[in-house]
């Protein structure tokens, strides 16, 4: 049985319908990339799973149970964590306090401050600084570390490379690599197609709120992606 099973999901972003009858599956421990142009519905898709955007109950099954429309605070307790687009760090909290907020739901698991600092050593040096004084890459590390602190079974990352230098992006994906598989599935929204293909097991391409392509990341060709991306 897959960890996330999405059948016929339609969802709105404000008054605008962003997703139409979507179908998607994420296996236990699988890493999935979602690509697509701006406005294809990628962020809304993650937000619907995380409970930020309303969704019909039966449209999203997590671990076999319907979770569509539950509030995000209930979903994090079940093991769904979102690294939101633009990081959304708590500005008046220090780096360490931001990370500790990630553990607010008290979900048992392997993650601790020490382990997050092990993955992102730079954060240890900066742990007492205000989160907003950090560089963009470091802020992204805090946002990822904060999500990991909730011991997720599904980690969703929304455009973590947005606005970051290529070397910084490479660093972050390098740190995420060893976390793939095992007990945690990942759902990554990524603009950089090369990065998305090389990091994931499978990928989905969204176009105007519908899945336009899906397959093993190693099997899809550039021609397929470009036609799925821009429409035939």
């Amino acid at each position, binding site marked *: 049985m897959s960890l996330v099973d999405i059948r016929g999901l339609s969802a709105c972003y404000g008054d605008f319908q962003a997703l139409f009858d979507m179908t998607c599956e994420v296996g236990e421990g699988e890493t999935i990339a979602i690509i697509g142009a701006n406005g294809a519905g990628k962020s809304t898709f993650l937000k619907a799973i995380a409970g*930020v955007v309303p969704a019909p109950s039966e449209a999203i099954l997590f671990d076999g149970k319907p979770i569509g429309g539950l509030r*995000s605070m209930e979903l994090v307790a079940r093991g769904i964590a979102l690294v*939101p687009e633009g990081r*959304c760090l*708590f500005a008046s909290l220090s780096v360490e306090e931001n990370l500790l907020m990630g553990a607010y*739901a008290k979900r048992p698991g392997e993650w601790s401050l020490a382990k997050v600092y092990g993955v992102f050593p730079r954060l240890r040096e900066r742990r007492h600084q205000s989160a907003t004084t950090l560089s963009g890459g470091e802020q992204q590390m805090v946002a990822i570390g904060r999500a990991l602190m909730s011991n997720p079974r599904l980690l969703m990352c929304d455009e973590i490379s947005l606005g970051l230098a290529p070397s910084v992006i490479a660093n972050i994906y390098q740190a995420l690599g060893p976390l793939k598989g095992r007990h945690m599935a990942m759902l990554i929204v990524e603009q950089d197609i090369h990065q998305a293909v090389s990091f994931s097991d499978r990928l989905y391409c969204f176009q105007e709120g519908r899945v336009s392509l899906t397959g093993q990341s190693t099997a899809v060709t550039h021609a397929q992606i470009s036609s799925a991306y821009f429409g035939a």
Partner: protein
Amino acid sequence: MGNWGDIIIQGILLGGLYGLSAAGLSLMFGVMRLVNVAHGDMIIASAFLSLVIQRLTGVDSPFLCLPLVCVLMFACGFGLQRLVLNRALNADMLRPVLVTFGLSVVIQNGMLEAFSADSQRLQANGLEVASVSLGGGLVVGVVPLLIFASCVAVTGVLQWILYRTELGRAFRATSDDPVTAGLMGVNDRNLFAIATGIALAVAGIAGTFTGIRSSFYPTSGPESLLFAFEAVIIGGLGSLWGTLAGGIVLGVAQGLGAGFSSAWQMLAGHIAFLVVLMVRPTGLFPKRGN
């Protein structure tokens, strides 16, 4: 010509009462950007609550009733936030202002109905007239000293909660970004209810002290609210120690004004408020990052 040292000390101690009245207001604004226009009436309501409890139980000191008053006020605040104020919260700050304004009218008229317009006072077994000498000819009342000490203690405890506990961390995170705090598992409705509960428990302390220190009427709330507001603004929004400092500035200004002429007491406080607004519009100790 009065004794200026005496006037300033009395002003500082009076500032303790203003600081105490303002602490809950400051907390509610800081956590959920909610301006509670009924805060003064809630303070006066808790003075009446102390009065009722004292009469029913027959204890001779309102200090003994204080824990019960705080618990009851916490429960009122929790329920009020869950059942009423949470529904009024949205991006627009006007809605909660209107709702709490309505609450203010309801509370005032409810108290008038129940207790008549007569002035009341809490009897503290002679403590209200007791005084101690500080040396150098300075004599201060025991009650104002107690009020000031409680204000410092309450501010210290609130500060500790906000900056040293998990609850406080959640308060600050939710204040920064409620949607992302939800992603962390924070139930903001519940958290806001706890914040209002704490704010009203502190209002319970302020109300009981107000009732011991001076006589009060069902319609005393708006005055209490006005001074509390001024203390919060002078101190800087979102800063609890700033609120205490704002209360002291206000108290000292009123004392100095009264030193010239009793007609100047209130006016001097409001002038000090306006001067601070003109010179430092963000208050004396604005929250970092604002």
